[in-house]
């Protein structure tokens, strides 16, 4: 058990560090550090332009999408090298949020299912941040129950014609391409009638509308499809195989390990240790200490659980569903922390705009996006502990005969 690098790891780290020292856009450092939870803003430059520029610079030097093959714009690095890179990139990784979905989910899906020419066409610009991708899976009527989606794709000559609506699509309005899960056969059970495509987000009939959130932000979009034509050549996997293609996509989500979800704990610790005008700090109160200690232990528990995952990966194990722990714990913890911070402020907690107020309003989304707390507990129970799946009443029923909302 040790945190030291092997000789190879140390060499890799030195190389990364040297390149970073010479190349990171230090002009954004202060803004990146002070960005409140979930919102990155730069004073002097558009965040999209800055993100693209940084990604491009990394790609040109071979530091983009480290674990992808070199032929597709990556570096062919090991998982542990990827973690080292993340550690060294540090605060500047905040500039990559625009690419997380594309690099983490769309790219691997394209890599697994597209033909060679397509891979050479689409992956390098994706790696280099020249083109942005989004993922079009969720729908208003199906959140946790993804396979219940209704967006139809019907064959028409060499094309498919798509009609329907997607929701919760991050960065749809900035995206050049998207991967799209559709229903191509409603007469078979729901998991069997799905097909995956990728499409040009500027195709006629695609309409994007931002979703205004309860916290006033708009991080996600609704995307409407009206007679949108997609060439059959942009199908990923066979017709009816869409569910297993989607599972590939979602499985890759879990590969983004090593990164610990924000919990609000460092902010809370700092807040509690800061004395007020009367010289007393919240931490002087034993009720506050009790809660801080519990959160501290959960926080370090998450950090070292991630470390254990990295070690498991470096031994060749796939990161498992046990990583669902991270979001499950972090989401609830941030909501608790924010609520308690507001309590400690007394009536001043009613004033919006502070970091804890922002966390308070944003944290409910964390507990839902990318899998609700309840779905995550199911995943842990079923895939880690081996408990039976929930009873499924819709499993062998043709999709068009399943009960639906409303």
């Amino acid at each position, binding site marked *: 058990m040790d945190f030291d690098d092997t000789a190879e790891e140390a060499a890799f780290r030195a190389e990364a560090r040297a390149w970073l020292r010479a190349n990171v856009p230090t002009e954004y450092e202060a803004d990146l550090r002070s960005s409140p939870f979930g919102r990155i803003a730069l004073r002097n430059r558009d965040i999209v332009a800055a993100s693209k520029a940084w990604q491009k610079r990394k790609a040109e030097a071979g530091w983009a999408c480290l674990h992808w093959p070199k032929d597709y714009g990556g570096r062919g690095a090991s998982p542990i090298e990827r973690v080292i890179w993340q550690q060294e990139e540090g605060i500047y990784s905040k500039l990559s949020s625009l690419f997380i979905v594309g690099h983490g989910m769309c790219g691997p899906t394209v890599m697994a299912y597209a033909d060679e020419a397509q891979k050479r066409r689409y992956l390098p610009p994706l790696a280099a941040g020249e083109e942005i991708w989004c993922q079009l899976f969720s729908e208003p009527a199906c959140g946790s129950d993804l396979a219940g989606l209704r967006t139809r794709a019907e064959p028409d000559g060499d094309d498919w014609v798509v009609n329907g609506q997607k929701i919760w699509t991050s960065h749809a309005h900035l995206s050049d391409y998207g991967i799209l899960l559709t229903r191509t056969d409603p007469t078979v059970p729901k998991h069997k009638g799905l097909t995956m495509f990728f499409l040009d987000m500027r195709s006629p009939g695609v309409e994007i509308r931002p979703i205004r959130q*309860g916290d*006033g932000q708009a991080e996600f979009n609704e995307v409407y499809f009206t007679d949108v034509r997609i060439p059959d050549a942009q199908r990923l996997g066979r017709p009816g195989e869409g569910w297993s293609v989607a599972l590939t996509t979602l499985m890759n989500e879990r590969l983004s390990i090593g990164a610990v979800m924000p919990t609000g704990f460092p902010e809370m610790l700092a807040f509690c240790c800061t004395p007020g005008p009367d010289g007393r700090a919240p931490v002087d109160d034993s009720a506050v200490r009790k809660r801080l200690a519990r959160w501290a232990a959960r926080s370090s528990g998450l950090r070292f659980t991630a470390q254990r995952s990295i070690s498991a990966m470096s031994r060749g194990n796939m990161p498992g569903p046990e990583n669902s722990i991270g979001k499950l714990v972090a989401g609830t913890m941030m909501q608790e922390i924010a609520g308690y911070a507001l309590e400690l402020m007394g009536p001043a907690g009613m004033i919006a705009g502070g970091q804890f107020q922002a966390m308070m309003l944003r944290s409910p989304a964390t507990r839902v996006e990318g899998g609700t707390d309840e779905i995550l507990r199911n995943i842990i129970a079923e895939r880690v502990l081996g408990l039976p799946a929930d009873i499924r009443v819709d499993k062998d029923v043709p999709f068009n005969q399943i009960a639906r909302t409303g």
Partner: protein
Amino acid sequence: MNFDFSDEQRELRDQVRRFLAQHASPRSAIAAGGHDPALWRGMAELGLLGIAIPEEYGGAGAGYLELCVVAEEVGRALAPVPFSSSACLAAEFILQAGSEAQKRAWLPRLADGTAIAVFAAVEGVGDAAPDRIAATVSGGRLTGIKSPVLDGGVADLGIVAARGADGIGLYLVDLRGAGVARSGLDSMDPTRSLVEIRFEGAPAEPLGEAGWDTVERMLDRAAVPLAFEQVGGADRALEMARDYALERVAFGRPIGSFQAVKHMLADMYVSATLARSNAYWAAWALATDAAELGQAAASARVSATEAFGHCARNNIQVHGGMGFTWEFDCHLFYRRAALLATALGGPALWEDRLVAQLRAA
């Protein structure tokens, strides 16, 4: 022995519920700065704003139980009006501590809605406490900064805690008068206004005798209808979640058929029920001036804050992604829960007050 509201009080509740369902629109009040003057006038016409104010001062003279009934409905409807500030807290302060002249001057106007009054004690971070009050009154003039002041953006009269010759006391200040400057604050609950008020030699007239004890006794009284407002909100959040759980289908069945959702809702029901029972106790204590009012009020407040927070949070969770959109009302209840949790002092203050009462008992 009858531990429930009377038939007449239940009828009042139904009437107020119907009225608010028809007229209260929290969303339209957001743009208007957190107040709906038309709704306020309507409530005044129904006699709701002075429901606990004696008839001799222009009120309906109904009583505290009726006040609690209305407060619960205000919470349930998320009504964008300064009911808790003006009709519950300020009216009660003036009624309990005011001189005859002060009562005659202000209570009729609070009852008919032509004046709105608010309580201004806090100065920055932390619950109000004697050693945290820097505002001073000298020669009948108030100087200092109060922030945040709930519903302060729409108020005419301030009941301001400040340090005078005899120590901390309460003062009546005309907020439309000289020496008063308000600046708006961004409110966690945009259906209720929040401001900072800067007093620079504003004319101030003492309300009752000085002493923080008096203030605390007043706060106990104001905490009771506030707890009902929270209970109303908790109940409505629970109802919304239940209805959505019955309607929303996933995996071929209503999500309310999954134990994870069922049990979340059962726990919400439990906390809402405990809060309601404590609130009833406090209402009885307030109405009968029982010796245990302090304990009952603190219990109601602790319980209601826990329940509203819990129900508002889980209401969003049951709604999933939809619960997080601006279009669904879930976030408005969540915001209101956060607002009311620290209005009149945060949980720690009421927890400590409750334990102090238990030790004294």
